[in-house]
C-alpha cells in the first residue's frame, strides 16, 4: 500500500461561489476513491483539478511525494482521464478512435484493440463509424481504453452513465480486479458500487462545502 | 497673447472650425472618461446597499 497521491487543504472557487475548502485525502495504490455529492457540488471540478486540466485552485497535490506542478509530464503519463463527454470522434471507427485515444501513451497492436472492444461487447462494430453507434455504445468505446491502459491512476467521471445492466457488472468486476493489482482509481457515480469494500474509500464533497 | 482681439482668437485665422471642433471632441472624451466610472460606482452602491438592507431584514 504505497501512497500514490496526497491532497491537502484543496480550495476551489467557481464563478464567485466557494465549491469546497480544506479538502484533504490520500490515495494509495490499489484503492478506489468514490467521490459523491449532489449535482453541481464540485465533483467534476475536483476531478478536473486532479487531472491537471485546471490550475485554478489553492492547496497542494503531491504525486509520489513530489508537488504535482514539478512532475507534470510523469504524472500525466501515469493518468487516464475519462470525462463527461467521452471524446469519441463520430466519423472515425472504434479502432481508429482507440488508436489515438491510447496512441499518446503507448504503441498498440491491432489484436490488443480488438480484444478490448470484444471485452466491452462491441464485437462486430470494429469498423463501423461511431456516429452510427448509440450513445451507450460510444461510451463503451471510451471504456474499452480501460482494458488497454497501463496507466497507474484512473480518473473516471460518471463511468456508469448510459451503460446497461451487465455492462455495469463487467465494469465493477474490472475495477475490483485492477484495484487488487495495485491500480488506484478515482471515480464519481451515483449508484451503489458493489465492489469488495476492502478497496472502497468514500469522499463526500458536501462536508467540505460552504 | 498671440491674437489681437477675442474675435481673432475664436476665428483662429479661418481654421477656427477645425481647432475648436477638435477641442470640443477632446472635452467630450475626457468628460465621458470621468463620468462612466462614477456612474457605474453609483449603480453598484445602490445595488449593494439594497442587498445589505434585504439581508438585514431577513435576520
Amino acid at each position, binding site marked *: 500500500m504505497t501512497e500514490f497521491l496526497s491532497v491537502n487543504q484543496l480550495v476551489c472557487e467557481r464563478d464567485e461561489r466557494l465549491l469546497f475548502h480544506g479538502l484533504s485525502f490520500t490515495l494509495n495504490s490499489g484503492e478506489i476513491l468514490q467521490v459523491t455529492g449532489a449535482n453541481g457540488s464540485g465533483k467534476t471540478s475536483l476531478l478536473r483539478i486532479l487531472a491537471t486540466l485546471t490550475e485554478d485552485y489553492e492547496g497542494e497535490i503531491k504525486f509520489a511525494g513530489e508537488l504535482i506542478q514539478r512532475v507534470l509530464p510523469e504524472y500525466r503519463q501515469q493518468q487516464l482521464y475519462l470525462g463527461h463527454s467521452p471524446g469519441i470522434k463520430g466519423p472515425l471507427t472504434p479502432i*481508429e478512435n482507440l488508436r489515438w485515444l491510447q496512441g*499518446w501513451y503507448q504503441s498498440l497492436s491491432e489484436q490488443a484493440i480488438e480484444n478490448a472492444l470484444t471485452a466491452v461487447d462491441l464485437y462486430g462494430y470494429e469498423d463501423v463509424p461511431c456516429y452510427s453507434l448509440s450513445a451507450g455504445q460510444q461510451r463503451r468505446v471510451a471504456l474499452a481504453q480501460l482494458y488497454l491502459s*497501463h496507466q497507474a491512476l484512473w480518473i473516471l467521471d460518471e463511468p456508469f452513465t448510459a451503460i446497461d445492466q451487465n455492462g455495469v457488472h463487467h465494469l465493477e468486476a474490472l475495477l475490483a480486479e485492477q484495484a487488487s493489482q495495485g491500480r488506484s482509481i478515482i471515480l464519481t457515480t451515483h449508484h451503489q458500487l458493489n465492489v469488495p469494500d476492502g478497496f472502497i474509500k468514500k469522499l463526500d464533497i458536501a462536508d467540505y462545502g460552504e | 497673447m498671440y491674437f489681437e482681439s477675442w474675435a481673432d482668437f475664436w476665428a483662429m485665422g479661418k481654421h477656427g472650425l477645425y481647432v475648436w471642433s477638435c477641442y470640443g471632441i477632446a472635452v467630450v472624451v475626457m468628460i465621458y472618461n470621468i463620468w462612466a466610472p462614477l456612474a457605474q460606482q453609483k449603480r453598484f452602491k445602490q445595488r449593494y446597499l439594497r442587498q445589505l438592507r434585504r439581508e438585514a431584514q431577513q435576520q
Partner: protein
Amino acid sequence: MVSEINAPASTVKPMLVSPGAAVWVTLCRDLRLGFRRQAELINPPLFFLIVVTLFPLGISPDPDFLAKLAPGVIWIAALLATLLAMDSLFRGDYEDGALDLLLVVPQPLFMHVLAKVCAHWLLTGLPLLILAPMLALMLSLPSQAYMTLIASLALGTPLLSLLGAIGAALTVGIRRGGMLLSLLILPLYIPVLLLGTGAVVAASEGLPADGQLLWLAVLLTLGLTLAPFAIAAGLRITASG
C-alpha cells in the same frame, strides 16, 4: 492479452511513445477526420472561387483594370477563406470532449497544437494554393507574377493559419465565437496582407519581389516559433474556465 496487465500496474513501465510518434498520431487523426468529412473539405476553395468571381462582376471585366486589382483580390479572398475555416479547428474537439484529453497528454502541448494547425493548413490552406493560378488567370494577372503569387501564398497561408489558431483557441469556449474570432484576428493579418500583395504587385510590374517574400518568411518563422505557445496558453485558459 489480459495476462499483460496482471503484474502490478505501477511497476510495469508502459512502452513509452516518443513525442514525435505521439504528435504524428494527432496529425494523422486530424487528417483522417478531415478526409472523412468531404463535404466540409470543399468549402474553403469554393468560397475562395466565388469571392474572386464576384469582383469582375461587381467592378468591371476590363482586363487591364482587373490586372491591377488581381493581387489584392486574390490575397483578400485567401485571407477570408482561411479565417472562415478557422472556427472548425478546435470547435469539434471542444464539443465532444476530445480537447480535454488533448490538454492532459504527457508530451508538451505546443507540439500537438503545431500538428493540429499543420493538419488544418493541409486541409484548408493548400487547396487555396493549388487554386490560385487558375484565379490569377481569370483576373488576367501578368504571367511573370504567377510564381511570386504562389510563393507568397505558400509563405502566407500557414502564417494566417497560425495567427487564426490563436484567435480560435481564445474563442472556442464562447457560444457563437466565429464572428468574434475575425474581429480579434484581422488586425494581426494586416502585415501579412500588405507584404503578400506587395510582393505580387511588384512582380506584376517586373520589379524584384524577393524583399517582400523574405519578410514573409521572417514572419512565418516568428509565427512557427511563438504562436504555438500562445495557442497552448489559450486552450489551457479556455479549459480551466
